[in-house]
Each structure stands twice: as structure tokens, then as C-alpha cells.
């Protein structure tokens, strides 16, 4: 590896806004997450009807990844097979679990909803959308711990398992939601080095 790892791009979604590399790219009206997500999706102007079937966590991840990976640079052929996804989450699929449990009480269990009662389905949706077949993992932690994630991802690069990685944090419960995704890879361009401190800075900004 001749180029050191750099943070190539970041995307953050919270409080009805979407930021890419610190710049606002979308602001929804003050509304429920569901309304925000639909508006944000329409603003993307893409054809992907499956979006509407996803649960809120998957929609959040989908939107963040769509902004993060937009552009030819991030969709080069062969790259998808060497792209990894390493995310962390706190509340698992609790938002959907609650909806599903409510349905069970009414004997109206929806198979489509049950599919989303696992937190890593959002990872699956991203992989399906972007054709990613590399290593993918979801950690459960009470708070976002960049240090552990950075060490893990750096190790994947060191072992040459991947050439790019989508990392970050994604959590949603009711109307509280936060997605923080970054794309990391080797680069000789001037960009933020991939360090715990830099990831933390991006996360809290």
C-alpha cells in the first residue's frame, strides 16, 4: 500500500438535514422521519421503488449511502467487490421491532416488516443497491466508538481484504435518528488522513 488511508467523503443525516462534506445538500421541512425520508428520496431523482418498502433504519442508511457514493469515482468497475461496510449501531432494529410486536398483538404480522427486525438488514440493502460484495459487519455499541472502528477498518486494508470502506454510525428510534457515514480508501490526494481524531471531528461537527 503506497498511499495512506484518507477520508474521501462523509455524509451526515440528522434533524431533517443531509450534509455531504460539511455542506448542506438537503433540508426537509420540520416533520416526521418518514416524511423527511420520502422528501429526501424524491430529491434524489432516482428510480428505486424498493425504497418505499424499507423500514426507517434502512431508509436512513440508503439515503446516506446514496449521497456518499454519488459520482463516478466511487462506482468504478470491480470496486464494489473490494468495498467493505463496517457500521455501528446502538438500538438495533428496535424501532421496527416495536412496530412488529404491535402487529403481532393484532394478529396482523407482516412478513415484509419482519424482514427488518434485524439491524444488519440496512447493510444488506446498501450492498444490494451498490453491488457491494466485500466484507460487511455491524457492531452493537451504546455510543459511537470511532477508535475501535478505525482500528478494525485499518486492519482490513492492511490485510488487503478491501480497497474501499464505507464506515460509520447509524441509529434510529422513533424520531431520534443519526447517520454518519464516511468513505475511506488509499489516496495520494490532499484529504483528511483516516485517524480516530479526524473521524471524531467529522462525527461531532
Amino acid at each position, binding site marked *: 500500500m503506497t498511499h495512506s488511508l484518507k477520508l474521501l467523503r462523509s455524509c451526515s443525516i440528522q434533524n431533517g438535514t443531509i450534509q455531504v462534506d460539511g455542506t448542506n445538500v438537503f433540508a426537509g421541512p420540520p416533520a416526521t422521519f418518514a416524511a423527511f425520508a420520502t422528501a429526501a428520496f424524491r430529491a434524489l431523482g432516482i428510480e428505486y421503488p424498493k425504497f418505499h*418498502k424499507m423500514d426507517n433504519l434502512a431508509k436512513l442508511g440508503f439515503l446516506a449511502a446514496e449521497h456518499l457514493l454519488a459520482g463516478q469515482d466511487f462506482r468504478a468497475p470491480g470496486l464494489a467487490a473490494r468495498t467493505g461496510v463496517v457500521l455501528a449501531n446502538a438500538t438495533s432494529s428496535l424501532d421496527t421491532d416495536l412496530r412488529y410486536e404491535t402487529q403481532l398483538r393484532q394478529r396482523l*404480522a407482516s412478513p415484509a416488516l419482519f424482514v427488518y427486525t434485524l439491524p444488519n438488514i440496512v447493510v444488506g440493502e446498501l450492498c444490494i443497491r451498490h453491488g457491494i460484495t466485500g466484507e460487511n459487519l455491524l457492531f452493537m455499541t451504546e455510543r459511537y466508538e470511532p477508535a475501535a472502528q478505525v482500528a478494525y477498518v485499518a486492519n482490513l486494508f492492511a490485510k488487503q481484504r478491501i480497497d474501499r470502506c464505507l464506515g460509520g454510525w447509524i441509529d434510529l428510534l422513533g424520531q431520534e435518528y443519526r447517520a454518519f457515514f464516511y468513505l475511506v480508501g488509499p489516496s495520494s490526494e490532499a484529504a483528511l488522513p483516516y485517524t480516530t481524531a479526524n473521524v471524531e471531528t467529522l462525527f461531532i461537527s
Partner: protein
Amino acid sequence: MQDLKLQLKELLVENLNLQDIKPEEIGDDQPIFGEGLGLDSIDALEIIVMLQQHFGVRLTKADNGPQVLATVNSMAEYITTHPQPKK
């Protein structure tokens, strides 16, 4: 029969989150899986639950699931030939 078919189309749009499609746009004989409305195996399961919930019909393994669910026509046909059992 026409009311039933329209009802089916409205239910499909609502239950399967087909946000960009209006019920009237679904053809009676239009294949709804694969290329049709882009539905997959999970959607098939949703439809089975939907038919049970709204019409009391329960598809068993003996019924030819793929055939019954293929179009609005085939679903309407199945519902009218399998009346809801008395509760």
C-alpha cells in the same frame, strides 16, 4: 367483480408501498411479479397475508400460489371461487 378488482389494486398499492403507482394504472391482466410491478417473494407473502386479512382466504401449499397471485384477475377469480368460511 369490477369493485373487487379495484379494491385489490388499492390494497396492493397500499400494502406493498407502491408509492409511484396509482391503482387505476394496474392492468387486470398485468403480471405483477418480476418485470410487472417488480414484486418479489416477500411481496408474495405480504399478498397472502393481505388476502387472508381482507377476504378471509388462506392460500395453502396445495393451491398453486404463483398462478393465483399472478394477476389481479387470477386473485379476483380465486376470491370469488373460495368464499369466506362462516366464522
